[in-house]
Structures are given as C-alpha cells and as structure tokens.
C-alpha cells in the first residue's frame, strides 16, 4: 500500500508481514524505530504467534535468534555499529550453523571517537562472516529487501543482513509502497528448517570440526554463497511478479551503456549520485552509475558486465581500511582486474558527513579530466589534519586528536549542523 512514512516504520511493516516468530531487540541508534514498531505490533496482536524479547545485549539478541532459528522459528533482529561489533561472535556463529536469521543493519560509524551518524564501517567489519549482505538504495528497496531476505535465507539456510543507511534512510519520511499481508503470504512460504531441535528426531547441532573436515565445511559455506548469487536475481524477479515493481537483484545500473566514467557505490548515496549524473549528462558528459545491492555474495560477473568498457571506475564508499584504502574498491578492482579501466577510490560520508551533489559532480569532473587520484577523501579539511599532525610531531603529549580537531574547528561536539 502506497504510503508516506518513516523508513524504519516501512521496514517494520514489511517484517511484520513476514510473520517472524521470535524478534529480539536491544536498543541502539539508529535502529530503534524498527524494533519499537514491531514490538508495538506484537503487543497489539496485529502480529500473532510471535515472541518479542527485550534482551540485555546485542550478543544476546543474536544468540536468542540462533536458538529460536535452530528450533524451527523464523527469527529476526536489528542492530547497528557498536552493537554489530558486540554481537560479532554470534554473527559468525549463525552463519556457520547455517541458520536463516534475518537482521537489519542500520549502518552507522564505529568509534572511537564515538559517532552515531551514518557510514558503512559496521557492515565492512562483518564482510567475511558468511552472511548474505544486501544494501538498500532507498526506503522502498529497504522495505522490499526484507521480504526477499526471509525467502532467500530460508531457501538457502543462510542468514541474511539487510543494510540500510542509518538516519539517512531509517529516519527519512518518504513515499513507500508497503507490501500487504496477502502479497507477502503469497511470496513467502512458512519456514521449513533444514535442521531442527526436535525430541522426535534428535540431532547434535554445533559439533567441533577439526582439520580433517574444516576446509570442506568452509568451502560449502562458499558454495552456498554462490547458490545465493544465482538465487538473488531470480528471487528479485519472482518478487517483481508478485509485487509489480523491481527491487533487489545483484546490481543496479544507471546510464552505463556508453559511460566513460562509472561510479560504483553502496546504499543511499546512489540517489544523489544519479542526480549528479543527470546534471552532467545534461551537459553531454558520458557518466554512469552502478549500485551494488548484493555485497555478499559479491557479484563479480554482473559488476564486470555493468561496468562494460568504461575507462575510469570510481568507487565512492562510506568506509575505508586504515593503512590501505577502500574496502569495496578491493572487490571492484578484482571484478575489473582484466579490463583496462583505471580505478579510483573516493572515501566519502564518513560518520555522517554529508555527500553533496556538488561534491559528486566534482568527483565526476576530475575523473573525466583525469585529475582524480587513486585514493581521495572527499571534502577532507586538509588544514585541520596538517595542524594536528604538526601538533603530534611537536609534542609527545598532544592529547586526543578528535577533541583537538573539534577545538581547532571551534565546534562544540555534535551541536552544529
């Protein structure tokens, strides 16, 4: 049903329609609005046959989900940032045990310095956990991806994480076509577990596996991800049939056909990039955009195809690996390793820093004019950095950089826009 509502509530509505049986909640900004809304549905009996459990930590949240899923219940939770890191041991465990838990990750930066605003550092920290990781470009996609997530997870017996930008999407009120119960029931069959704790047919789940079989177990995890690579596109197709709109898939493209320069990115920044693209194309520049929806499994082939013959590929990412550079860029680089395209990484929007259309147009123009370095930090205040570097070089006890920088900028923490 077409609605104007907050992203969190749209997602909550979709999740409720998926009839989860156990929902675990632990508060962390900016994920809270989602579980709050689901909790209300459980209390109001709009969502029946569901236990909503207020746990004492994210570690417990994922653990409860693991127990519930292994007992044949459809389990859901949501988290962000530090919360994801606190549950990371259980995140790996859920994937290792092949339990189809679905989790929303409201992407947020990781401290220190503590920062409640959006970037993708949290998602990148669990890149190798074995979860399927889908990124939403807007709230419509975020909503639809959750419905597809349960379907994928349960078909493949793999946990699926739907990543949506914290605040930028979770707190944005936009037009969303929220799935109806009927549509979802037709699309998502009841959960039939691959393995279940049942006195009638007892098994031991979670054995200790030694060198003699561990490699095989890990390979099978990879094989499952490759199956997911197949299914994600198909499921998106089946979703389009049932819901009358396209959402999800491996990648999305915008004006790539004849593009010289292609920007590759994850999440909500794609919308702004597309606006920039329109601006440039209006002036005849051949630029295009590739959005990656499925970050894990990583769609090497689809990406290579989408990029085509572009001579310059720019990865705009909201995370980076200190001491190295882009994270997503590494994967993109592998996809185009045998093409002649040159690759640049633009680190942008860290910790909630706005990524503006103007800034992106600048990136495109520099790329077109071959002025873009291999690694650029968009809108970096070089003077501030240099002054702090000097301070550190000058005095041993230069103090905490974060506070120094704020003092330098004359800003009171988080007060200003």
């Amino acid at each position, binding site marked *: *049903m*077409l*609605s*104007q*509502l*907050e992203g969190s*509530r749209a997602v909550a*509505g979709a999740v409720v329609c998926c009839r989860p049986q156990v929902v675990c909640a632990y508060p962390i*900004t*900016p994920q809270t609005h989602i579980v709050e809304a689901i909790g209300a549905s459980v209390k109001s009996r709009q969502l029946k046959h569901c236990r909503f459990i207020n746990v004492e930590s994210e570690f417990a949240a994922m653990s409860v989900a693991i127990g519930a899923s292994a007992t044949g219940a459809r389990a859901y939770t949501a988290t962000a940032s530090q919360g994801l890191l606190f549950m990371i041991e259980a995140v790996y465990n859920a994937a290792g045990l092949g339990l189809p838990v679905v989790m929303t990750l409201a992407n947020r930066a990781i401290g220190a310095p503590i920062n*409640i*605003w*959006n970037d993708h550092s949290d998602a990148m920290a669990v890149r190798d956990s074995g979860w399927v990781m889908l990124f939403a470009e*807007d709230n419509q996609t975020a909503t639809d991806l959750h419905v597809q997530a349960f379907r994928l997870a349960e078909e493949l017996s793999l946990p699926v994480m739907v990543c949506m*930008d*914290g*605040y*930028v*999407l979770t*707190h*944005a*009120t*936009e*037009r969303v*076509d*929220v799935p109806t119960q009927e549509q979802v029931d037709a699309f998502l069959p009841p959960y039939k577990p691959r393995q279940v704790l049942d006195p009638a047919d007892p098994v031991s789940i979670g054995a200790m596996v030694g060198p003699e079989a561990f490699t095989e177990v890990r390979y099978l995890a990879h094989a499952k991800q490759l199956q997911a690579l197949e299914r994600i596109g198909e499921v998106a197709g089946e979703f389009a049939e049932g819901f*009358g*709109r396209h959402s999800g898939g491996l990648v999305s493209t915008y004006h790539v056909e004849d593009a010289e320069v292609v920007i590759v990115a994850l999440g*909500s*920044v*794609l*919308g*702004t990039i*597309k*606006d920039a693209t329109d*601006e440039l194309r209006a002036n005849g520049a051949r630029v295009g955009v590739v959005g990656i929806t499925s970050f894990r499994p990583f769609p090497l082939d689809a990406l290579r195809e989408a990029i085509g013959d572009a001579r310059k590929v720019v990865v705009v990412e909201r995370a980076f690996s200190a001491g190295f550079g882009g994270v997503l860029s590494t994967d993109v680089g592998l996809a185009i390793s045998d093409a002649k395209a040159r690759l640049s990484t633009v680190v942008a929007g860290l910790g*909630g820093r*706005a*990524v*503006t*259309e103007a800034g992106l147009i600048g990136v495109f123009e520099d790329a077109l004019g071959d002025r873009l370095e291999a690694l650029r930090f968009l809108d970096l205040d070089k003077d501030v950095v240099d002054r702090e570097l000097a301070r550190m070089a000058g005095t041993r006890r230069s103090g905490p950089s974060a506070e120094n920088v704020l003092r330098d900028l004359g800003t009171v923490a*988080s*007060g200003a*826009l």
Partner: protein
Amino acid sequence: MTVRAQGEHRVAAGEVDGSTTTAGPRGRPELFQVRFHGRGGQGVVTAAELLSVAAFLQGRFAQAFPSFGSERAGAPVVAFCRISGTEIRTHAPVDAPDAVVVQDATLLHQVDLFNGLGPEGYLLVNTTHSLDDMGLGGLADRLHRERIVTVPATDLALEYLGRPVPNVVLLGGLAALCGVVSLDSVVAAVHERFAGAVADGNAAAATEAYRLVTAEAKTANKEAVAHA
C-alpha cells in the same frame, strides 16, 4: 504513518496538480525545499513530516528528515522537507532551502537561520513582534518583502489547542505563504496523524494561521506596490 495517496503509484513528472511551485536549484522543476528551525520538543521533525504527508496527499513526491543528531529537549534542532513533482532520489541535506520556518524566534540570534536562503526564498516566523522589533528589518533588502511573514503561532496553538505547540499551526501559514501545499491537504495530514481534540484544534489553528497569513501577504503586496 500510513495514508492513502491520491492517484496512482509513483506519480510521474508533470503529473502534478496546478499549485504554485518555484524552480529548485540547478533548474530542476518543481523541487521545493523547506527547512524548519525550532527547539527539541517543539515538534520540528513532526512539522517536516506532516508537510511531506500533505504533499504526498496531493500526489506529489516528498521527503522529510531531521538533522540527524542527539539533541535533547530545548536544544536547537532542524528538520527538512523536500517536495517535488518527480521522484526524489537525493539523500543529501538541504543546503539551499526555498523556505525557512522558524518555530521559535529566540533562535534568531543564536543560529544562522537564513544560511542558503536565496533571494526568492520564503520566511515564516512564529512571533507576536514585528520584523523591526526583532531587528530583522534589513531582511526586506535580501528577500521579497511579501515573502516574509510572521504568525503568533504559539498564541494560536494555546488558543485552539490549549498547548504551546506551534508546529502544525505554522504549516497552515506556510500553505498560505507559498502555496506549496494546500490548506486542505495540511488539514488532512493533521487528521491522519492526530485524532480527536488534538486533530481538530490543530486543524482549526492551522486554518486560522492560513487566514492571517493570506491577509498579511495582501497588505504586504500593497506596500510593495506603493513603494514602487
């Protein structure tokens, strides 16, 4: 909140109703951006959301979002609303608003309220004082005089609601000031979000604000003409 939209899914560009709209930045048609200033607890975010709902009810695309922060009650806060005839893809903050709504005049000397507000911009201030009393006389040189309006929104809220919550009241004023949404859709949005006395009170207050602003705009126009 969930409300039924007029018209079909995803209204295409150009399919918008006839209400007045001004050109957005970089000449993209029908984009209208509003920035709300207020204090935590004054329903600033709600105001932005209700405006987006009102627009949505008119079959337009809208996007509302707060200035993401961890402000507590009393602290200055900002919220935004984008309205467009075409799908809104950007998620960048609003840097150049077409209108600024000030829910609390005491912010005037604390925050740069007019940052990015262009010469064609609109300004709606909740106050019982005149612009000169507030030392804003000079603004007349920066903006069209008739696009600067003050409303005693808090008083109206107290009168119609019994509570000093000016946010919805100002939406009525905004509808009158720049016509980006109709009063009817504001009232409809209010009824979607609230119920009973609160809904009725807000609707009545908004309507009254709409009346006042319409009147004030007329006189301002006359002055403008006289000066010429």
